[in-house]
């Protein structure tokens, strides 16, 4: 059995840690919850058996087989939200794992700025989800009642007009909900509509102090349109929809392509990497090739490749420290085990596009 650490959330540890033992069922597969601290933040984790967990890989079945884990993950985060109160917590994407506690600490260290920023942004806030469905037959009847001439008109024409009127009604509902709820929320995020009759599915980020205000607004708008639409009000939830941190598991294709572009062997020292970069820049820079219109393009590719290779090397344990590795391996198994944190913002966001 191979163990990994499953990360649920990041929390603020300046005001004391929540009493994790109070959540008796524990994490996934009932493993006890633990914390790993770095500076003033901490990750809430539990051990998981990677093989058990990895069965989830076939994409279409993933959701089904993971349901139980996903449920527990949500329960843990709901518990944390309640425990941390005003101090805020930051749920991480489901499925976020690290090999051991040291690596969890390294994730916290490298993504510290982003995590801290998000924690601050989410402090005292929670997510409330509003899902709205409408009853189309009722709406159509109402339209007909208001426009009795439609019933006798040409059926194709009437159908089109009915449809248009219904669309107008829908817009009126959505605009009404939007204009009532958005002013009391700090932020919102739209999610895909889950059924034919769903017309609105939005997560609102609401300050805890404003929860009552938000409730009132929901009541008001629900009463206004109660004849035609049904509100589903979910929450409070951890702010799942408002966390968007790029943390990438090592992407071999991308690192490999960059390594080859820099003309590096599969094992290379940091000095060799830097030197390869310099040589290529000296060869391709547009200042040295004023008549070559493609020189700029090539330079940009070299710079991009170097950024990726550097991000990979820096993500490896002991990089740049005395006694750290003198050579870096670009072999598939090494890269895939690495955990590249995109602290340079956008370097790695196009991971999936790399062929």
């Amino acid at each position, binding site marked *: 059995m191979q163990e990994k650490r499953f990360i649920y959330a990041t929390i603020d540890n300046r005001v004391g840690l929540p009493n994790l033992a109070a959540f008796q069922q524990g994490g996934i597969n009932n493993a006890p919850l633990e914390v790993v601290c770095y500076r003033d933040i901490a990750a809430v984790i539990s051990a998981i058996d990677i093989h058990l967990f990895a069965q989830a890989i076939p994409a279409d079945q993933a959701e089904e087989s993971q349901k139980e884990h996903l449920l527990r993950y949500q329960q843990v985060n709901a518990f944390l939200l309640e425990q941390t109160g005003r101090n805020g917590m930051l749920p991480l994407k489901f499925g976020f794992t690290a090999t051991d506690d040291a690596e969890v600490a390294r994730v916290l260290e490298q993504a510290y700025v982003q995590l801290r*920023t998000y924690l601050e*942004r989410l402090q005292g806030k929670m997510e409330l989800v509003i899902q709205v469905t409408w009853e189309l037959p009722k709406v159509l009847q109402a339209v007909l009642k208001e426009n009795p001439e439609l019933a006798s008109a040409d059926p194709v024409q009437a159908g089109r007009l009915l449809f248009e009127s219904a669309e107008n009604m829908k817009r009126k509902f959505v605009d009404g909900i939007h204009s009532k709820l958005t002013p009391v929320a*700090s*932020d*919102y*995020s*739209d999610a895909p509509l889950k059924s034919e009759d769903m017309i609105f599915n939005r997560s609102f*980020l609401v300050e805890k102090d404003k929860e009552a205000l938000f409730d009132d607004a929901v009541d008001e708008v629900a009463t206004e349109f109660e004849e035609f639409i049904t509100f589903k009000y979910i929450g409070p939830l951890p702010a799942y929809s*408002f966390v968007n941190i790029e943390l990438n598991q090592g992407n071999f294709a991308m690192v490999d392509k960059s390594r080859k572009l820099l003309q590096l062997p599969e094992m290379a020292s940091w000095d060799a990497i*830097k*030197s390869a970069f*310099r*040589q290529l*820049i*000296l060869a391709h*820079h*547009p*200042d*040295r090739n*004023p008549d070559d219109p493609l020189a*700029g*393009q090539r*330079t*940009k590719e070299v*710079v*991009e490749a*170097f*950024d990726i290779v550097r991000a990979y090397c820096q993500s490896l344990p002991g990089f*740049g420290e005395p006694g750290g590795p003198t050579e870096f391996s670009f072999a598939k198994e090494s890269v895939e085990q690495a955990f590249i944190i995109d602290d*340079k*913002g*956008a*370097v790695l*966001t*196009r991971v999936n*596009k790399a062929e």
Partner: protein
Amino acid sequence: MSKTIGIDLGTTNSCMAAFLCGGPIIIPNAEGGNTTPSVVAFTEDGQPFVGISAKQQQLGNPQRTISSIKRFMGRQWGEVNEEMAIVAYSLEKAENGDVKVMVDGTQYAPQEISAMIIQKLKSDAEQYLGESVTNAVITVPAYFNDAQRKATKDAGRIAGLNVLRVINEPTAASLAYGLDMSDDQTILVFDLGGGTFDVSILGLGGGLFEVKSTNGDNHLGGDNFDKAIVDWLLAEFKREQGLDLSADPIALLRLFDAAEHAKINLSDCTTTQINLPYIATPPEGPKHFSLTFTRTQLDELSAPLIERTVGPILQALADADIKAHQIDHVVLVGGMTRMPAVQDRVKALIGKDPHKDINPDEVVAIGAAIQAGVLLGEVKEVLLLDVTSLSLGIETKGGVFTRLIERNTSIPARKTQTFTTAEDNQPTVEIHILQGESEMAAFNKSLGTILLVDLPPARRGLLEIDVTFDIDANGIIHVTAEDIVSGNEQQIRIEGGSGLKEDEINQMVKRADEFADAAHRLRELADVRNHGEVLASEIELSLNEYSDQIEESEASLIAERIADLRLAIAGVDVGNMRKCIESLIESAQVLRFDEGEDEEDFVYDVD
């Protein structure tokens, strides 16, 4: 063959250099100075003049004298409150939110004022080199954003120069020193100029100058130190005399002038005297202001300003992933680095004695000339790989700033981001582009909005539009978009952007040419007038002395022609003046003074 010059377009002073006979040299201006005050003044009839003469008449002509224009380059009205408090001339908000300078009812873009300075440098360089100058490398503070860089490039164009490259001042400074440095060195450049503070960290290896990080403060420079001194002087004067001078523009200008001088003096001495007679003239009698100002007092006043340099230095070190002790060389740039307290602070922070061999006022221009040499293929030993000093990104949901190109990324750089539509059949996609370091879009500099228009009808999320953000070697941003599915280049418009439009630039080029013509005519007029005046008085003297030795009719003819010439001089007709000069010389032949020498003086270009 035409020449390329390197221009350091400074807030208070500008400087130029060229690459000649295998090395960079500073080109003096027409007045013989190595630096030219970045001051433009206008005569009553709207004629601009630039440099030391403009600076010298600032006190008497504050409303028509434009100094520190660099602080307004590429800036929006809302960004320059601090700057506006420092200058005495009028500013206005343009329709697109840019700042404009107003002189006697005429509006000038800051680019145009800068162009006047560049034009003077260009024409002085041409005179000195005896060749036309068509290309230039112009330097900007590393912390200049896209709008400020574009504005600088436009200023060069308005002045009739082809701007080969806009490079960062600290980077240029390191080039000036780096030619003599051995391999694998790390350089920290501390650049405190008249209006901006920059710090850059560079690595030199294998002939590649790689900027590792850069940071700074766009609102910190010598002007702020002067302001601190002036504020203190105002308070002192109020305490002593009970008078508030802060509303008196002339008194303020004199105080600023005195503060700057005192500050400069205190770099070499430990005490200096500030003397401002007749600083105020209230009804009860004139007031004078005189006091002794010590370096200790100056240090106290400047301490908070000097401390503001520490944060950016530490950030630059952190961004470069370098410890202070790993810095091999410290290079100082900008007149403010002559202040001992500034040097001490840098030394305390880095633990190295700074290099001082190259004049800090000239080092940037020299570096710019070297970069010009690189671009022309004359310098092969070095290559510069600079970075972008500000993160580039877009506004995403909830007003969040999402970075696409992080600061300190080597340039040229490129980043492609895929966008899609949020609604069915959405015909346009709007992308708000910004530059800055804040997590929230609202606190960053907006560069404008791109509209992807005429999108083909499609269900939401189906279209994929690749938008490529490209930062060129000048640090200037270009955006292109491609619809991946159809492969069509998408039409792009940037809206709400600041800066000059193409036709505005063309108009300014025309206006600059007219000014150059007018300046040429004015100079001619002044020359002819001077000669006429000198001639009239000299001949008058001789006439008085020798009138008894010539015929009376001849004497009266000469006297008459002297009077004619003086009348002509009072007018503006150059042709008429020349005619009068010629006839006076002719009639004065009878007088015995040295004709040969004078005749030489009287040879004019008749065009």
